[in-house]
């Protein structure tokens, strides 16, 4: 269980409150109007935005004071997910051992993971020579190797075409299911939330509401969501 217990996030001219729990293994979309704080919610969980009040718990233990890398969380950002000067394999390898050299066994796991996301044989390339979809796959492969129980995705596929995005979300679901990982994905497209097939957190009016089943939310949207969806 990932719990945000009466959490308040105060930035310079922005405030967000959250009091909610996400079950382990859940697939949760985070949806809401632009600027409402979807990314900030993920940043607070990932360790990139300060929590001013309340507690962040994972399996009952507080994690709000830990640096990003020591939280049970793997994050995929909107952009800059890969180091452009490192090869694809080296980027993925960072998920295994950021501060050490990879052994033969590690390298085999990297190659295997790359193959599992459909990038077999591309390990020696630099990210710059890959397409946008391929780059997303590299980031997902790395997140898979990080093997954290929570995966946070902050609209990483926003720049991809509709068909490609569907493909990517399928890949994300597969990777999360393989590991039993809990998934939180920011999106502005209700179609993504439906495809994810779980619950949805609505972020609006300075508050992140507890997750509710997505179909239920979309069939009977509150006013604020209705206005947003149009």
């Amino acid at each position, binding site marked *: 269980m990932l719990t945000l217990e009466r959490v308040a996030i105060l930035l310079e001219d922005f405030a967000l409150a959250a009091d909610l729990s996400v079950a382990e293994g859940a697939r949760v979309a985070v949806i809401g109007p632009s600027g409402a704080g979807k990314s900030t919610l993920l940043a607070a969980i990932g360790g*990139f935005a300060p929590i001013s009040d309340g507690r962040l718990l994972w399996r009952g233990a507080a994690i709000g004071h830990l*640096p*990003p890398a020591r939280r049970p969380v793997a994050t995929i950002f909107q952009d800059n997910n890969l*180091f*452009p*000067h490192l090869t694809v394999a080296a980027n993925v390898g*960072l998920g295994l051992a*950021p*501060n050490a050299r990879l052994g033969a066994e590690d390298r085999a796991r990297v190659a295997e993971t790359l193959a599992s996301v459909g990038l077999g044989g591309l390990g020696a390339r630099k990210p*710059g020579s890959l397409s946008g979809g391929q780059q997303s796959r590299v980031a997902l492969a790395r997140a898979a190797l990080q093997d954290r129980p929570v995966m946070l995705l902050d609209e990483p596929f926003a720049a991809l075409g509709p068909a490609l995005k569907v493909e990517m979300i399928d890949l994300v679901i597969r990777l999360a299911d393989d590991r039993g990982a809990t998934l939180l994905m920011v999106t502005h497209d209700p179609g993504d939330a439906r495809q994810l097939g779980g619950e949805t957190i609505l972020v609006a009016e300075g508050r992140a509401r507890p997750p509710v089943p997505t179909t239920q939310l979309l069939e009977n949207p509150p006013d604020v969501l209705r206005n947003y969806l149009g």
Partner: protein
Amino acid sequence: MARRPRPLTAAGLAAGGLVSALVLGSLAAVASRAQIGPGAGLGPGDWGAVRFTLWQAAVSAAVSVALAVPVARALARRRFPGRGLLVTLLGAPFILPVIVAILGLLMVFGRAGWVNDALAFAGLPAVSIYGWHGVILANVFFNLPLATRLILQGWLSIPAERFRLAASLGLDRRRAFRLIEAPMLREVLPGSALVIFLICTTSFAVALTLGGGPRATTIELAIYQAFRFDFDLSRAALLALLQLGVTALAGTLALTVAVPDAMGAGLGRPLVRWDRGPVWGDGLAICLAALFLLAPLAALLLRGGPALAGLPASVWVAAGRSTAVALGSALLCLGLGLAIAVAAQRMGGRRARGVELAGMLGLAASPLVLGTGLFIMLYPFVRPDRLALPVTALVNATMALPFALRALVPAVARIERDYGRLADSLGLRGLARLRRLLLPRLARPLGFAGGLAAALSMGDLGVIALFADAQSATLPLQLYRLMGAYRMDEAAGAAVLLLGLSLLAFWIFDRGGRVDADA
């Protein structure tokens, strides 16, 4: 929040501390040996030197920046074959050894130089390079390229979309300038002028030869006199303190005015514009600048080139020694600069300013005070001339550090802004973060800063003259020795060699930073 990795921050603090200790410690060492007697303190002549120093620096900065605007504008919006080469070559004067530059300037602007030959041929009166206008001419020669680079960077930082918008709105050139370019210039010009002002306040050798006489006494010359003529250490220390104060004041100002960071940034991309105006104006600006900056180099090549083959072996040995010192100095400078830049980024705020300012102290330091102070500090432990070359490398690194920092600090900040979160989320820290994130992405500014440090060190006479014995002359010192032995032709040959090595050192480092710079 992310826990800040400690060792790198500590390294930065140590680097800042080392530089402060070097600059302030040597000053204190000189002061400690001073005997305060009657006549201690500063005389009216010294205040005259302060006034002249500030005045010539201010005029030089203003003229350099004013002339750089049309050149940068022309370079920003024109594409022509050899543009890249020209941008590189125009940078040459900045890294030129002072003695070499003055030789070249004399051959063009001297009484028997090209310009006066042409004026005489046309029946016009001769112009003189000596006096305050000579000092300013030389300062502009050195700093026009830097000003151009800084302002060109400003131009290239304007998004092309804005010019596209201006074109689609049908704005004429004057309106477009007022709306798009003038705000950029307002932001970039003060900082550029301040940087050049700072460099000119410590100009020493320029005023010495071209100044025309005691009217053009700068603070640095007054320090020289206090040491050499009066052996008055208290006055030397006082003057050095004064120089430090003046420069620190201007430096603090420069840090608040936000200096543009052209150091190490790519200047290869010409601006795409729809309103470029007539070609002749830009062509004229580029040709005049190229002529002004490159003619002295060409004159020097013509004068010294023939003597190159016949240079005595000792000159080549000195050249090897200078190359080693330049290499050591560049590596030291990069080490110090990187440590300070990383620490400044990590600490942020006031403490970051502090450590960065410590690194900038080299700009304000008097080489003579630095050398003598080091001598006093080292003497109890070791014969200083045995350390001549390492000490020279260290001092040269300190002198080049401010320029390295201008390149590295913004670059580190940019990298951490773009990739800091990713690195944090992966737990990349300490040396691994340095090796896997910072070093590869800093390749370009590191190459640029290293090249600058190597070239500046190559041409600097600096403290070696205080420490050297017969066996450890560097190339600039050997050049002076040739001149001192009536061998002016060979000296010109050595000057060409020095010019070549300085440019080569810069080029190799700078190139090295660009290799494999994908994405």
